[in-house]
């Protein structure tokens, strides 16, 4: 089976009904298919990784499980984080903060980009 580099691009805030969970489901399926999966949180999308402290299932808790699916290439937009006063330790899982240059390189290297 061919291996493609597939980037899931999360650019919207969570809590838009089922949309965030549906994006996450697609990401996990891609991981199961053993593709080169990465995910970038940009704009209000960075809020999807914010630890909400809630006990019920929310998107943040679900994203925490990414490493168990062997999805370790998790990126956040450094500028988007800074604009929102967030640091990587406020997030539910380890994420690499990318500069604009890093984001451009990441996108250019992909075969497929899946938007949320």
């Amino acid at each position, binding site marked *: 089976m*061919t291996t493609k580099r597939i980037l899931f691009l999360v650019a919207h805030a969570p809590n838009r009904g*089922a949309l965030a969970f*549906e994006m996450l489901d697609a990401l996990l*399926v891609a991981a199961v*298919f053993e593709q080169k999966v990465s995910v970038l949180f940009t704009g209000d999308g960075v809020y999807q990784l914010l630890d909400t402290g809630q006990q019920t299932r929310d998107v943040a808790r679900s994203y925490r499980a990414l490493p168990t699916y062997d999805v370790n290439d998790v990126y956040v937009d450094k500028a988007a984080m800074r604009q929102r006063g967030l640091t990587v330790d406020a997030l539910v899982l380890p994420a690499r903060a990318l500069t604009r240059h890093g984001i451009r390189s990441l996108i250019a290297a992909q075969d497929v980009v*899946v*938007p949320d």
Partner: protein
Amino acid sequence: MKFAIAVHGDTTNSESPHTALRFARAVVANGHQIHRVFFYHAGVNLADSLIVTPQGEPDAGDDWARFATEHGVELTICIAAALRRGVLSDQESQRYDRTAANLKAPFQIVGLGQMIEAAIEADRFVTFCA
């Protein structure tokens, strides 16, 4: 070249079903192939056979069905997204004890794996957002 097309919106909140169909027609006219069309999020509503479109407005679901039948193109909708939005095949309707089934031919209900398979197999993957 093989194209995979994803459609995320339905006609109540988006132009994506219409834009994507025009694109699909041009793909075929340009001599390329469509590997699969995958309807996700609200896009699954295109497969709802109960929709009644006002006279004079284009019926995107019908337009897609006609295009797919004419050109042998695979139209797929995500099962999880479809269940959430009440688009059910006979099988799902029975499984969940619902009063009716409303999946419109030739749309097929499939798992998300078909979207990923399309991303893997096609040369180009294009998403039409809501």
